């Protein structure tokens, strides 16, 4: 019997305590902001959309290997000896043409593992988080300056050059042998 009345009083009392609390919260300032009119400033280490400064990229493919979901695709073409690609802002000499640098940002898991191995710090995470697209294929970001045709052209140039080099190397021992033994070119000295 006493339990019965005690239950009723406890119920009423806890309801009143709860009511007082919620009433007090009616006058507490709201903690939410009116996004998209007001946007919070993200901290400096925030990991959102990736960005690649292609001028600094030396084509080492470290980021491609580090990515756990394989969202980065890089293709490089060796530079010919007469071509000078210049120097990155961190002082590294560039020796490769980066013909394809694609990041599929829809696959990216925003872990940041690609940022740490980059020797020139050209790939980093920005604070951009509003980049939705209507078309799924627009989410594949192409960072390279080369169009596919230019890339093909560059590749052919390099292949041509390598072929010439090989030819030269093949001709060189024959010439040497001829110089040493003009009578019998086949005989090695």
């Amino acid at each position: 019997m006493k339990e019965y009345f005690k239950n009723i009083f406890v119920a009423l009392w806890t309801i009143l305590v709860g009511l007082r609390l919620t009433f007090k919260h009616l006058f507490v300032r709201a903690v939410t902001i009116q996004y998209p009119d007001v946007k919070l400033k993200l901290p400096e280490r925030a990991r959102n959309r990736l960005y690649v400064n292609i001028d600094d990229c030396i084509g080492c493919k470290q980021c491609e290997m580090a990515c756990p979901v394989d969202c980065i695709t890089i293709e490089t073409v060796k530079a010919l000896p007469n071509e000078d690609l210049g120097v990155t802002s961190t002082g590294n000499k560039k020796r490769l043409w980066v013909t394809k640098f694609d990041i599929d940002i829809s696959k990216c898991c925003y872990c940041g593992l690609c940022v740490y191995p980059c020797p020139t710090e050209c790939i980093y995470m920005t604070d951009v988080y509003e980049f939705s697209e209507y078309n799924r294929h627009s989410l594949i970001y192409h960072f390279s300056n080369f169009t596919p045709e230019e890339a093909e052209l560059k590749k052919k140039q390099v292949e041509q050059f390598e072929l010439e080099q090989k030819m030269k190397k093949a001709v060189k021992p024959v010439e040497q042998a001829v110089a040493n033994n003009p009578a019998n070119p086949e005989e090695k000295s």
Partner: protein
Amino acid sequence: MATFEITTRSIKGDLKTDTMILNMGPQHPSTHGVLRLELVVDGEIIVDVIPHLGYLHRCFEKHAEQMTNYQQVIPYVDRMDYVAAMGNELAYVLAVEKLMGIEVPERVQYIRVIMAELQRIASHLLAIGTYGLDLGAFTPFLWCFREREKILDMFEITCGARLLYNYIWIGGLSHDLPSDFGKKLKDFLKTFPKALKEINDLLTYNKIFIDRTANIGVLPADVAINYGCSGPMLRGSGVKFDLRKNEPYLVYDRFEFDIPVGEGKMGTVGDCWDRYYVRVREMEESLKIIEQAWEQLPAGDVHAAIPKKARPPQGEVYFRTENPRGELGFYIISDGHSSSPFRVKARAPSFVNLSVLPEISKGYMIADLVAILGSVDIVLGEVDR
């Protein structure tokens, strides 16, 4: 697939009654994720519960074998228990470090403790908030999330992400604490006890909430141990077992904190209210740990012990830590010559805790099942991996 039997029962006269099969389907507001529960009910009373899992299976263990190194597995480990990601990373990294025999600097260990305890508070806040939401109390949910935001803000200034961190690395951490971390932490330590008291006043001691959760889903201690339950499920049944005290890892043995245990204050020992209350009390204990850790935090370099290439010797290791949901264990086999794991097996606490659901919900009503499921506190990412 589990099998079930439809029981027929005849009462006095010619009335034959059957049990009904009800489906609490994968999409449901109260199942905390994609979990399918097949209920065999007799009227309103539950006769059997058959959970069907696998709706969130993402082949984590297979992925781990395909990664090029141990470091790349960490984002995958994050995504298992996405609510308490720091705990997952910690367990995996400690397992790999044990396999490789790496000694991390003291500063790294203290920071890991702080992060793990902050994550415990955040995870329990979510558990408590959604538990109130399941039972119809809409307000504590938002108050809990308001507090959780402060913790996620602290995580964001440290490692850049709010939910899936990739912060605890093999041999150290990815970043050291930023300069404004101390101020944010101190503010949080000051305001959180008040907020917790408010949530307690509104939800924990509310008579209606107590009526809904006390004496419901009673899990006896021996059943809990037999099923392999861990975490607040086990401690709510009165068993004082916590891996941070029984098998201390990191620097937990240097801190003074208590292990809250369910005492049947509002009902029987091991009912839903006990498990819920253990979580509330654990948050207070985590606050104590964080305060002590912050005071004792030594200086040092967090990148000092990070190996260039994590190549563990041949062997296997099983390491377990106290996740907010229970004991998270990683069993890693390394074959010595490859830089990626041969086999990673995650022993997820929610998976094992969920197995006890049919046992503790027999004989209760359908409306109680929601309360029981909320008190088990599962995260489907962990259950299905």
